[in-house]
Each structure stands twice: as C-alpha cells, then as structure tokens.
C-alpha cells in the first residue's frame, strides 16, 4: 500500500478506536437541536421560514469547524507527545505527511457529520442522496479550509502551546459568533455584517443550506460562497504545506 495511505489508515484506525467520542458528539448534536433548535425556531416564527432547518445546518457547520480544529490539535499533540519527529523521519514527503493528515481529518469530519446530517434531513423530510453528496462536498471543502487554518496555526504551538491554545480559542469564538451559522446575514446589525464576510463559516454554512434547498433570499450568493470556500481551502492548504516543508522542525536539541 502507498505510504501516505498506510500512514492515513494507521491514524484512522486510532480514530475509529475512539467510538465513544463520536457517540458523544452525535448525542450533543441531538440534544442541542432538540432544546435550543426547537426553542429558537419558535422565537423567530414568521421572520425566517423553517428556522429549525437553518439552525440544524448551522450546527452541522460547527461540527465541521470543530473537526477541522481537531486536526490542528492532533498535530500539536503529536508534537507535544514526541511523535512528530518520528513522523518527520518517515520515508514520505512533507506533502505526503500533510495529505495523510488531511485524509485523517476528512474521515473524522465525515464520521462526525454524516449520521447527524442524514438523520436531520430525514426527520425534516428533506433527505435526498444527491443533496447529501453535494452538502458533504461543500462541508468537506469547508473542513479542508478550517484544517488548513488550524494546521497553519499549529506552527505557533512549536513556539508556545499556551499562545496557540489562547489564539485558537479566541479565533474559534470569533469565527463562529460573527458567521451566519445561527443568524441569516440579512438580519445582522450593520456593524457586524462586514465581519461576517470575513469568516469562512459564513460561506460554508450558506453554501450548504443552498445546496440542501433552503430559501436563497436569506443566503449569500451561492457562486460567491462556493468561490470563497474553494479559495480558502486551496489557500490554507498551500499555506500549511509550505509551513510543513519550510518551517516546521520536529525537535530542538543541543
């Protein structure tokens, strides 16, 4: 088997061994949707049609975000537990090492997202194989972009883990709160609106909703959303590969 695949499969096996985390993640999704989703959709009756559906896709996007952040954490943990030098000494290129990590991240995302997405769409009567496939592609691209951002930031952890943790926590809060995962852009106060355009979650969430048939009047232009999601994915992948090739050094020793 190709070495990149061998490494990815090895990591994925570790991931599959942590079944309890997936179950907890799905349970948390169900709980949040059942309590907050249903409550909030009653509060906004008449303003946004089918807010419950809008909210559930927002929650799915947050799972994708967390899954991407997981990849960055996974990378940092490798460094902290001393495994990174071992990976850097394996006979694969740095691009290959990134690809193996990306495959791990993509699998993590699909496992965490597919069951809740499929169940939610089925419950809401919006299930279609075509819709799920397109939504997964959009979410996968968004996940790549988030993973790229997090891996690029994990470089900071080589200097200081504390700074990395603080930055990721701060960035996560900002990226989620200022995005359209929970609120349509047209209802955002004017002072927040420009900031919402700066977070990739806005584009990922609205693109996924559009692909799943949500009313476009509450969403961003899908072409713009698709272009930004692709650009972020390509840009951050390029950035992380560059960092991996040029900057990251696995260990410091004198």
């Amino acid at each position, binding site marked *: *088997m190709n*070495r990149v695949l*061998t*490494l990815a499969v*090895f990591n994925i096996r*570790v991931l599959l*061994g942590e079944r309890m985390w997936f179950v907890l993640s799905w349970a948390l999704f169900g709980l949040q949707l059942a309590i907050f989703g249903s409550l909030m959709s009653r509060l906004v009756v008449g303003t946004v049609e089918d807010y419950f559906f809008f909210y559930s896709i927002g929650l799915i996007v947050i799972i994708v975000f967390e899954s991407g952040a997981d990849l960055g954490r996974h990378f940092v943990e490798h460094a902290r*537990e*001393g*495994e990174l*030098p*071992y990976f*850097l*000494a*394996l*006979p*694969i*290129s*740095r691009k*290959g090492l990134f690809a193996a990590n990306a495959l791990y991240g993509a699998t993590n995302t699909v496992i965490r997202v597919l069951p809740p997405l499929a169940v939610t769409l089925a419950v809401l009567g919006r299930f279609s194989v075509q819709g799920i496939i397109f939504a997964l592609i959009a979410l996968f691209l968004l996940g790549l972009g988030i993973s790229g951002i997090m891996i690029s930031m994990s470089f900071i952890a080589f200097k200081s883990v504390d700074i990395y943790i603080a930055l990721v926590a701060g960035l996560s809060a900002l990226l989620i709160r200022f995005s359209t995962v929970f609120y349509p852009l047209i209802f955002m106060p004017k002072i927040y609106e420009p900031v919402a355009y700066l977070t990739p979650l806005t584009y990922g969430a609205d693109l996924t909703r559009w692909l799943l048939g949500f009313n476009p009047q509450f969403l961003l232009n899908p072409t713009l959303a698709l272009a930004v999601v692709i650009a972020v994915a390509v840009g951050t992948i390029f950035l992380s590969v560059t960092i991996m090739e040029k900057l990251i*050094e*696995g*260990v*410091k*020793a*004198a």
Partner: protein
Amino acid sequence: MHAVETLNLSKKYKKTEALRGLNFTVLEGEIMVILGPNGSGKTTLLMILCTILKPGSGTARIMGLDVVEDGTKIREILGIAFQEARGFWRHKPSAILRFHASMFGIDPKKREGLVEQTMKDLELWESRDKMFMHLSGGQAKRLETAKVLLQRPKIAIFDEPTSQVDLRGKRKIWDQIKALRDEGSTVIVATNEVREAEYLADRVTILHRGQQVVCNSIPTLKDAIAGGDIVEVDFEDPVSSTLVEHLKELGGSLQLSPNGNQLRAKVSRAEDWVPKMTSASYRLGAKISSIRITEPSLDDVFLHFTGTALEDRQ
C-alpha cells in the same frame, strides 16, 4: 564516496550555537561513535542528518544526497533510534513495529516473522501485549532500537541507544548494532558513555561545543596522547601536597591528579617513572598500598583534546 559528509555545518537556536562549522565524515560500513557530553551538539547533528532539522548554514550529505534537497530519498535509506523513545501511547509494541515495517516497505509476508524475531532479540517479546505507555524506560528504549534493527537501513543512527537500559540489555543492543554493521549498514552512534564507545567504535569523533575536536580509531587516539601510560597509585594515607611537589620534580610525569588516597599520573614511560616515584614516596614516608599501570581511557583522550573531563561535562 563518504556515507555521511558535512561541510562547515552550523545550527543556532536563538543565541545558542549548537553546531559551529562542523566538518564530519563517516565511511561506508563503519561504526562511527560520536562522543561528547550533553550539549555538545550530538543530537542536533543527528537530527540534521535524518532531515528533521534544517542546517543553519553549511551542507550535509548522506550517500551523496543533500539533506535539504533530497529529504525523502534520504529517509528511505536511513533509520534513526531517537534519544527519547518515540512511540504511540495507546499502541502495543508489536503494532508499533508492524506499522514501522509497513512504512519502510518490508514485505508483508516476512513482516510478522521479523517483528517477532526482533522483539525476541531485544527481549521485548514478553511485553508484546503491553501498551507503549506502560513500558518501562528501558523497554521503551529497546523498542526504539528495535525499529532500526527491523528496518536494516543503509544508514543506521542510534542516539544514546543504551541510556536507561540495564547492563545485560546494553550488551544485547551493542551486539545487535555490531551485527547490523557486519551486514553492511553504516552505523552512527551518539553517546556520552565511554564504555559504549570503546565497545562499538570503529572510529570515534569527539564533539565539543558544536565542533569536531578529533576523529580517529580508538587505538590511534590513545597513542596520540603524549606518553601514553596512566599510573594509578593508592596510598594508605591522603596524598600530601609535599609528595605531589616532589613527584613533579622527578620529571617524566605530564600530569598528576591527587584525589584523597589516590594519585593518578599521566607519564611518558611507566617503567621509568614508577621506580622513581616509589623511592620518593618511601623517603617522604608515604606508604603505597597498590600500583596499577593502564593505558589511557577514552575519558583521558577526551580530557587531552578538550581540556575538560567528559564526566565533568555531563
């Protein structure tokens, strides 16, 4: 062609210069031991050779391949056992070795047998069902060595392979490293243990503050110390400064190191110096209980070339 060659290799961590213009070569098929205290730059050099660290300046080549330009090709022919064991906390040793074997393209049909044999060779078989995080320090270290032995690379690097390993385990690892060399691998061992260097080395490079001080075979290095004989004398009472002064006046001694009841002397010819020393001691009433004449140890070689004892620098 040298198996390993560095030219003017330097590496700096902020203000600390770990390597300072290092010129270093390893011949194909030899065991090169890099001897130096902690902080001498051994691990930094090894990390650059296995392409994990990048050189600050200068070049390093492995079998003619540049460590910066040809990283992946180098990693295909090189194996490293790290100073700190690198395992996966929740994996068993056999799973770690199987993964390692698969990454280095070992035939799947032979893999299981090789993993079992290597674990048995290093007395890890009994621990095959333990998680990595439950292994003792010595077991984890042997597992680290097992990866390279399983891989049988063209260039094998061991960074302090027997630290934390008991005496019996040390001998096992050393014999396996020698067997690897006998099969054609070029081996680099970094250590601060003189005994390990004496047992393994075809040649020794002494590294001190990021620079190569000297490189040669152990007999040649020992011969290079002027005089060549070490005399250790045990007295019944502590060695007095008067006795030391008298012995200095005898001539023929290059260095006298009194320590409690013992006097260690580096002399040009033991057979000339010992009779003169015993007479002088008798005259001053210093009773001798034993005399040992030995050849210089690697520690003496280190002291001679760097001006500090290896043990003092740990």
